[in-house]
């Protein structure tokens, strides 16, 4: 999501890299770039100005100016200040709550409240909780039904009384939870404008009836400058304990989140990263800031990888990697794992160094190409998959035919596979591949044997594997 933002900041700082000594002029030039990057990322004008002033104060410090690695120093200042903006609050729900805990979701139309209700229910279930959901959206056509469908999908009880009075529905759910022993009640509400007095009063009435511990303001990550106004009003009139930032799976730079957090003073609790019920993550300020700066969201990646990867398989794979026995079969399995980890784009965005690549957008391997690679490998015999060196010209022709691709496609795949194998082996032995160091930060390899090809070549795709258009 933050690609262009980080590219810009890195570009600005990169231009400092060659300088032995910084002058205030250098810093001003970098600050201008950072300012533009923030504005284009939808960070509010005032927030940007204040931010730039703080960075300038600290960067102009003699110690920074005279240091031998000024670019690093400035990066650190930017990083620290961004972290300070997000605050150090860890995401999630509030620590203490009565039983049953009541969670109220509120926000503008279409921001993702209903979907988040379902995701949150699922997340709570994974924590061993027993949530009950209720919709109080009697306005949008089929909104009640939407939550009911999500409940069925997630296997979570949805309370659905006859009454069409939002307050009575919420109160009824709380009573039901107490009676039936549910420990959490998730109350979905209708989307509303912060200037709609009638609906804001209705929200207040719902709040008074169920006394929620958590009031989560659900905001679309693509929101512009209006974010402050709306979040501010919801907070002023109803009170908000946390923000859920949705649709972060896109390429929105999410600058509005920064504004909301710093102006409204409410921490981000969760982020939504897709339309599936699994796509909800705890918010970690340090991860998002690292991502802002293009350092890669390694921790999130590891977490995702851990969910998708069978630990035993991973150990075996690591062993084979070490012995240079990585086969096309392993390769195909990895592709499958990648698929399980969710949309490719969101995974790629988390890989260190890739956030840095200007052309990432164009280089994005598409899921169709992944499909083609799988098709090619599936058209090979077991023997060929075990030992790719036996695949001669006539076999290539056969494979191409069988997979509906061309011999060129097969050639390319094999070439890239051998290349990847070479790099992986180096990583497996703990060496750092020379090619990988150039042009990217030192990749922190995820533990647990998830083999991440730390390689990016100019013309190849980000994986050095998938030939891009």
């Amino acid at each position: 999501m933050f690609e262009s933002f980080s590219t810009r900041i890195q570009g600005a700082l990169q231009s400092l890299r060659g300088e032995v000594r910084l002058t205030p002029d250098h810093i001003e030039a970098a600050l201008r770039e950072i300012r533009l990057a923030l504005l284009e990322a939808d960070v509010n004008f005032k927030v940007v100005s204040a931010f730039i002033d703080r960075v300038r104060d600290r960067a102009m410090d003699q110690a920074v100016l005279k240091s031998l690695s000024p670019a690093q120093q400035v990066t650190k200042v930017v990083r620290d200040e961004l972290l300070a903006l997000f605050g150090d609050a860890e995401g999630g729900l509030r620590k203490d709550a009565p039983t049953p805990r009541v969670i109220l979701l509120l926000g503008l139309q279409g921001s993702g409240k209903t979907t988040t209700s379902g995701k949150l229910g699922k997340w709570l279930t994974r924590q061993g909780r027993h949530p009950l959901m209720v919709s109080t959206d009697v306005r949008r056509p089929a909104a009640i039904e939407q939550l009911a469908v999500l409940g069925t999908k997630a296997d979570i009880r949805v309370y659905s009384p006859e009454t069409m009075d939002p307050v009575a529905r919420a109160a009824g759910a709380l009573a039901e939870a107490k009676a039936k022993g549910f420990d959490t009640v998730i109350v979905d509400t209708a989307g509303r404008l912060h200037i709609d007095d009638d609906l804001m009063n209705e929200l207040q009435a719902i709040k008074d009836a169920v006394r929620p511990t958590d009031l989560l303001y659900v905001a679309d990550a693509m929101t512009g400058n209006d974010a402050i106004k709306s979040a501010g009003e919801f907070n002023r009139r109803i009170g908000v304990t946390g923000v859920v930032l949705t649709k972060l799976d896109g390429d929105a730079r999410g600058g509005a989140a920064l504004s909301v957090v710093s102006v409204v003073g409410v921490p981000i609790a969760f982020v939504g990263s897709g339309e599936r019920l699994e796509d909800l993550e705890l918010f970690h300020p340090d991860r998002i800031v690292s991502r802002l700066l293009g350092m890669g969201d390694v921790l999130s990646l590891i977490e995702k990888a851990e969910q998708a990867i069978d630990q035993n398989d991973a150990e075996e794979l690591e062993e084979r990697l070490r012995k240079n026995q990585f086969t096309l079969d392993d390769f195909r399995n990895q592709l499958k794992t990648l698929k399980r980890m969710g949309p490719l784009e969101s995974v790629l965005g988390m890989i260190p160094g890739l956030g840095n690549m200007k052309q990432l957008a164009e280089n994005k391997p598409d899921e169709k190409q992944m499909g083609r690679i799988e098709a090619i490998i599936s058209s090979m015999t077991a023997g060929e998959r075990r030992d790719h060196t036996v695949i001669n010209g006539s076999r290539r022709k056969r494979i191409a035919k069988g997979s509906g691709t061309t011999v060129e496609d097969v050639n390319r795949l094999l070439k890239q596979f051998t290349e990847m194998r070479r790099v992986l082996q180096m990583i497996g032995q703990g060496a750092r591949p020379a090619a990988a160091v150039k042009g990217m930060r030192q990749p922190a390899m995820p533990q647990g044997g998830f083999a991440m090809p730390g390689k990016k070549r100019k013309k190849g795709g980000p994986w050095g594997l998938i030939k891009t258009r």
Partner: protein
Amino acid sequence: MGFLDRLREGLSRTKQQIVERFEQIVREADAPERRTTEINPDTVEALEELLLSADVGVPATERIVTAVRARARAGQGLRDLVKQEILSIFESVEPVPQPTARPHVVLIVGVNGTGKTTTVGKLANALKASGKDPLVCAADTFRAAAVEQLAVWAERAHVDLVRAKEGSDPASVVFDAIQVGKARGRDPILIDTAGRLHTRVNLMSELDKIRRVAARAAEGAPHEVLLVLDATVGQNGLTQAREFTSVAGVTGIVLTKLDGTAKGGVAVAIAHDLKVPIRYVGVGEGIDDLIPFSARDYVDALFQASW
């Protein structure tokens, strides 16, 4: 009621900070003794801030500010200069010729939650009221209860709906709908699609497939592709417009939720950078809350002294 009245009504509920700010800037810059002098840097900066906080974006803001600064004032007020410049950005966009093929097939696209389904409902209603006999097609087979949502709108607008089961192939529903439309003599055919982020390659190619299938069912279809944008969107709106235009051939934009405090300034950026015309604006959740876009009224409304 005209565009301006509706917009004004939609917006009257809030104090317009942006307008107040603009008034203040204008008052200072246009004081009689200053009218013929150059516009001072503070004013330029304040104007810049104003435009950026309306999500107009950096390039379009630069153009407006540069033009304002460069133009000899000759007694002309700052207000007129700014309005004129924004208007000329909108006017540089060529209107798209409307094909005359029948049935006229309109595809509604956009990212998640912008107001596509609601817009289909409102449009169907408006077309019906103007004497046409539209058909709506529920091609969002992904989101929970999306089909039921559109069914309610179809009923409200008294139009027929062609639907498929959740999870079935959207392109095939589109094909069926066009066939049904032809058989029953319905025209135009409005297609609601699932929300999708422009970064999802496979979902975008699904749109491409829908287009191809539509073309097979009716010559030249889809004849119109409307991108629905939420007025609260920031600079990502520009990316959305660019991507949807390149993949789905967007011919016009619908700007929704203008009844809130957001100005939808990204519309200026889109006209400036991409030259895609704005066709309609949404000003509420009711069935009548859709009005044809008028650049002049929009610019007037943007900087009205009182709403």
